[in-house]
C-alpha cells in the first residue's frame, strides 16, 4: 500500500473513503427513520395491551417485552435474518419445490430494530399511561365521547408529552443499534468505516470518523427533539 496522506484517504471519489462512509451514514439514517414509525405504533399497542383489563392481552404484552428486551439485540438479529429465510423457504417449498427465497437485509434489520425499539418504547408508554389520572377518561366519557375519541382527543396528546423524553432515549439507542446490522451484510456507517480502517491500516482515523458521525447524529437529534418538545409545550399552553 503506497503511503497516502490522510486527506487523500478522506477525500471524495475513487481514491478516498468519504463517499463510502457517507453512503453508510445514509443507510444508518434511513434504517433508523424507517424503523421509528413501526416501533412507535407497535410500542403504543403493546403498552395499551399491558394495561388492558383483559388478562390474556396483558400476558401477551408482558411476554413480548420480556422476550425482546431480554434477548441480546445481536441474537434477535441473527434469528430473524438467518432463521426467517430457512423457515419461509421450508413453507414455500411445500407449494413450489425448488423455489428460493431471500429476506432483504434492510427489511430484516427494520423488523428486528422495530421489535427491540417497540419493547423499550412500550415501557415508556406504559408509565405515561399510568401518569394520566382516571378522571381524564371519565371526563371524556362524561361529555359523550366514545372510547376511541377519548383516547385520540384527551389521552393521546397528554401521553405523547409525558412519554417524549423517554422516547428520545429510545431513539438514540435505536440510532446506535443500527450499527449491529452490519453483521447481516448491510453496509452502514460502522461496516464501511471498519472496511476502510482495515484496508488502509488507519484504524484510529476511520473509527474516529465513525464516532464523529454518530456524535453529530445525536446532536442533530437533540436539536430536533428540542424543537418538537417546544411545539408540544406551546400547544399545551394554548
Amino acid at each position, binding site marked *: *500500500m503506497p503511503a497516502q496522506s490522510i486527506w487523500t*484517504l478522506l477525500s471524495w*471519489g*475513487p*481514491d*478516498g*473513503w468519504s463517499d*463510502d462512509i457517507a453512503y453508510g451514514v445514509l443507510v444508518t439514517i434511513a434504517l433508523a427513520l424507517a424503523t421509528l414509525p413501526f416501533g412507535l405504533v407497535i410500542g403504543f399497542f403493546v403498552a395499551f395491551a399491558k394495561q388492558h383489563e383483559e388478562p390474556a392481552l396483558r400476558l401477551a404484552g408482558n411476554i413480548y417485552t420480556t422476550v425482546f428486551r431480554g434477548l441480546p439485540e445481536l441474537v434477535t438479529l*441473527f434469528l430473524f*435474518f*438467518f*432463521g426467517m*429465510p*430457512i423457515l*419461509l*423457504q421450508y*413453507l*414455500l417449498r411445500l*407449494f413450489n419445490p*425448488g*423455489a*428460493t*427465497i*431471500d*429476506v*432483504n437485509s434492510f*427489511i430484516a434489520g427494520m423488523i428486528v430494530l422495530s421489535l427491540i425499539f417497540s419493547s423499550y418504547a412500550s415501557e415508556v408508554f406504559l408509565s405515561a399511561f399510568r401518569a394520566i389520572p382516571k378522571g381524564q377518561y371519565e371526563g371524556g366519557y362524561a361529555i359523550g365521547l366514545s372510547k376511541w375519541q377519548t383516547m385520540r382527543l384527551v389521552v393521546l396528546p397528554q401521553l405523547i408529552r409525558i412519554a417524549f423524553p423517554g422516547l428520545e432515549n429510545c431513539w438514540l439507542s435505536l440510532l446506535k443499534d443500527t450499527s449491529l446490522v*452490519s*453483521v*447481516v*451484510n448491510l*453496509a452502514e456507517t460502522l*461496516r464501511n468505516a*471498519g*472496511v*476502510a480502517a*482495515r*484496508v488502509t491500516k488507519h484504524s484510529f482515523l476511520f473509527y474516529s470518523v465513525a464516532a464523529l458521525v454518530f456524535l453529530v447524529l445525536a446532536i442533530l437529534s437533540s436539536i430536533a427533539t428540542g424543537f418538537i418538545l417546544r411545539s408540544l409545550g406551546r400547544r399545551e399552553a394554548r
Partner: protein
Amino acid sequence: MRIALRIALAASAALLTLGVAQAQEKTLRIGTEGAYPPFNNLTSDGQLVGFDIDIAKALCDEMKVKCTFVAQDWDGIIPALQAGKFDAIVASMSITPERAEKVDFSHKYYNTPSAIAVPKDSPLKGVTKADLAGKNIGVATTTTHYNYASKTFTDSTIKGYPSSPEEQADLANGRLDAIEDDIVVLQQWLDSPDGACCKILGQPSPQPVEIFGPGAGIAVRKGETDLVNKLNTAIDAIRKNGKYKEINDKYFKFDVFGAES
C-alpha cells in the same frame, strides 16, 4: 386453512421484497469478507480485489459457471452461508475441525508456509536443524510456528515473544540470528521501512499438517459434495495450467500454496 396459509405467504412474499425465483443452476454466489488485504478487500471505489477474489474468478472460469460476489462481515459469514445468502465462502478461511462441523471444505487453495528471516548480512546458508544449531531463533509464542520451531530446532535457542513485532524488532537490532513466522507476515514487514535490515532465507521443510493445519479452503453448505468435488477439480486444474501461478505472482514473491498435499 391451506388457502389462508397461501394468502399469508403471498402477502409476506410481497412485503419482504423477496427474490422468489427458481434456483438458477449456472450462477454461483460467493461470499467474502472484503477487509483482509491482500487476500480480499474492498477498495475505496467499492471494488472487491485480492488473491481470494482472483482465485475464485479463475475457479469459476474453470468450472464454466457465472459467479457473483457478496461482501459480508466476518462474524456473520458462516450463518449467511447456511441461510443460503450465498453458496461458497472464498475468504481465506482456515480449515479447522470446529468449522468442519458446520460447513464442508474443499481442499486447501493456499497454505501460507512458515519461513525463516535473517539479517541481510547473515552468514547462515540454510534453514535445516544443522544450519541453525547454536543460534538464537525468535518466534511468537502460542503460534503454530512456535510449536514447530521448538520441536524441530532442538540444537538452537528458541526465544518466545508475545507477538510478531517484538521478534522483528529484536532481529533488526541484532539480538537474534533468525526469526520464524508466517511468510505473508514476514513479507509485509520486509516490504516496510522497518524490515529493510533483513531478508527471507528460506522455508523449513517438511512442514507437517499436524502442526500447521491444512490451510485455507472454500467452505460450502454441509452435504454439497458435488460442489466440493467440482471445486477440488478446478483447484487442481488451475494449479496445473499455470493460472494459479500467474495469480500467485501478482500478489506474492513466493509460492503461497505451500506443500503439495
